[in-house]
């Protein structure tokens, strides 16, 4: 029987699979219980597993994350939802000061098997604070892993890996493509390695590294170019970054374009440029380049189309770089 599902269903299925397999897994956050999540990522779970394992909380992100630290210390594996990435910042202190630090603080005595899920990214014509991409903030914090899937298959496999990981994982879901397409995905639980990028398409002239919802846009852009052979890498894990896959590709192509939705300066793209310089300097035939969101606040809907790099801009930039 085929199991054709979209990304948000893949998230739901991963949670369901793991909750079935492991009684230590609990899911909580705002509106995740009775309502099944504002994006329906937790739909049906409370009915299936009861109110002790899937529940709504008061409206307080710091406590959602802070209590998850305690639940993880005391034997559970919490998977908490932050309703939108824009609302994760009240929990920033808990994340940076505790989630990321318990293992090191106790010299390995207490690790925190927990996952913080949040939908992220723009393009859904939403109110302020509902469109941002700030993966770089979390990637810079020692002690955290940051994962971003771009397909239903990856979403499910990576989320299950995140839940099984003995250490905390920030799991960011590209909400713009939550329902964009379906994929046939194994119904049972399976894992995908955290920390491994995926080469989506091989190519010789230029490496394009991207993640999340931008993967689709990059594919579209590349499909519009015939005379350039582009290698597309879906990073999948922002931190720890799979430098090897990127470097190998650049050693072959000599050129790299990084495409992300987040603001440009001090974004994750900069780290990739730095890595490529450190590891593949002599292979570079053109300046490693970023095509990203602006260094601006994400515009409200009537301006948002300008913010996210369009397939046309990506295409032009690939051409420009290939011709360098």
């Amino acid at each position, binding site marked *: 029987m085929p199991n054709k599902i979209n990304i948000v269903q893949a998230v739901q299925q991963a949670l369901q699979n793991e909750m079935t397999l492991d009684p230590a897994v609990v899911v909580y956050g705002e*509106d995740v219980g009775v309502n099944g999540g504002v994006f329906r990522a937790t739909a049906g779970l409370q009915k299936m597993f009861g109110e002790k394992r899937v529940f*709504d909380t008061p409206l307080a992100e710091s406590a959602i994350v802070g209590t998850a630290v305690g639940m993880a210390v005391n034997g559970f594996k919490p998977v908490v939802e932050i309703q939108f990435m824009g609302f994760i910042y009240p929990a920033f202190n808990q994340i940076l000061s505790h989630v990321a630090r318990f293992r090191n603080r106790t010299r390995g005595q207490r690790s925190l098997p927990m996952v913080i899920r949040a939908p992220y990214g723009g393009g859904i014509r939403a109110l302020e604070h509902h469109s941002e991409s700030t993966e770089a903030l979390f990637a810079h914090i020692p002690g955290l892993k940051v994962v971003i899937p771009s397909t239903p298959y990856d979403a499910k496999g990576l989320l299950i890996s995140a839940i099984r990981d003995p250490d905390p994982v920030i799991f960011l879901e590209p909400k713009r493509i939550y329902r964009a397409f379906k994929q046939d995905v194994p119904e049972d639980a399976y894992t995908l390695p955290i920390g491994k990028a995926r080469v989506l398409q091989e190519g010789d002239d230029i490496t394009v590294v991207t993640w999340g919802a931008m993967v689709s846009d990059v594919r579209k852009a590349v499909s519009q170019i015939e005379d350039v052979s582009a290698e597309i890498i879906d990073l999948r894990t922002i931190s720890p970054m799979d430098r090897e896959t990127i470097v190998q590709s650049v050693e072959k192509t000599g050129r790299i374009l990084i495409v992300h939705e987040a603001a440009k300066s001090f974004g994750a793209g900069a780290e990739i440029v730095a890595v490529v310089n450190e590891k593949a300097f002599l292979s570079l035939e053109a300046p490693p380049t970023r095509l990203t969101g602006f260094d601006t606040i994400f515009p409200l*809907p009537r301006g948002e189309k*300008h913010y996210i790099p369009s397939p046309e801009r990506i295409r032009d930039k690939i051409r420009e770089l290939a011709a360098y």
Partner: protein
Amino acid sequence: MFIDKFNPLEDDMIQVMDENGNIVNPDFCPDVSDEDILTLYKTMRKARAIDSIALSLQRQGRLLTYASNLGQEAAQVGSGYALKKSDWAVPAFRELGMWLIKGWPVEKIFQYWYGNEWGSHFGEEIRLLPIAVPIASQLQHAVGIGMAARFRGDDDVVMAYSGEGGTSQGDFHEALNFAAVFNTPNVFFIQNNHYAISVPLSRQTASRNIATKALGYGMPGVLVDGNDVFAVLAASREAVQYARESGPVLIEAFTFRMGPHTTSDDPTKYRSDEEVRLWQRKDPIMRLEKYLMKENLMTEDAMKSMTESLEQDVMDAYKSIEHTSDTGIEEIFSYHFENLTPQLKEQLEDYQAFLKGASHAE
């Protein structure tokens, strides 16, 4: 004043007018002229007109996500009406009736919900902050405004809003604590509409009521029937006076969100029709209309035609901005700092060059 005598651990909710429009508690009735009453009514009606037009526009795809105020008009309008022009109001995002009182132009309100930042540009003289989306964060701004007023010796009061869901946030706590410690002229007006999206009051707090939370800060807390515009006005006026003269106050307005959380929400997932029907009987506008008719202040016909003309005005306001252009490219960049940074300038120019190239290419 009754406000600093109210004991939220024991006293019942303050009500002036019951569900049938009878004044049941004349002692608490605010001192209002007929004109005041008509203004209160008209503003509540206008809020409802905006809500109903916004909902239908949204369904037609002519407006984005919208948060309706249905059922909370008395709480919003009654509290806003207690303020002077020079007093500040600091909203969350569901205070339409108050916005109208404070003077946020209807077309600007539509512009905001249509996704344009210019909606929140409405002139310094309107002492109203823009909508704050991150729940409860705005309460701290309100306290800062109050600190400024107090330190400078201004006479202004700051009325800040939050839903009952917002009272669970740390920022709520810190704001009330700062207000009490610095004895600022702040009123915290909590619209307890019983839900935070799908999460019911019982999952939000285990306290007897929201008003009780004031005790932990050493400030008065009072609970009023939020669907009774007279009770809300009376309590708000007292609170404003108390804030001006003495210090901060918390008001809980007991009300109900009769519509969905926003246009993206399906409330049947988490609450019963029964519960909604119960509250429909307490509708703040219906209640005031009964009073108006009993007191011969307005006829049913007059009310009907007022509603129609309000709807016309509201529709006109919407139309005046519907076809204003989308956000311009420069606008995206120009309001981050007083001057564009070199990075912003370069990114703007690059993008303009791309657009120029693209338009040539077509």
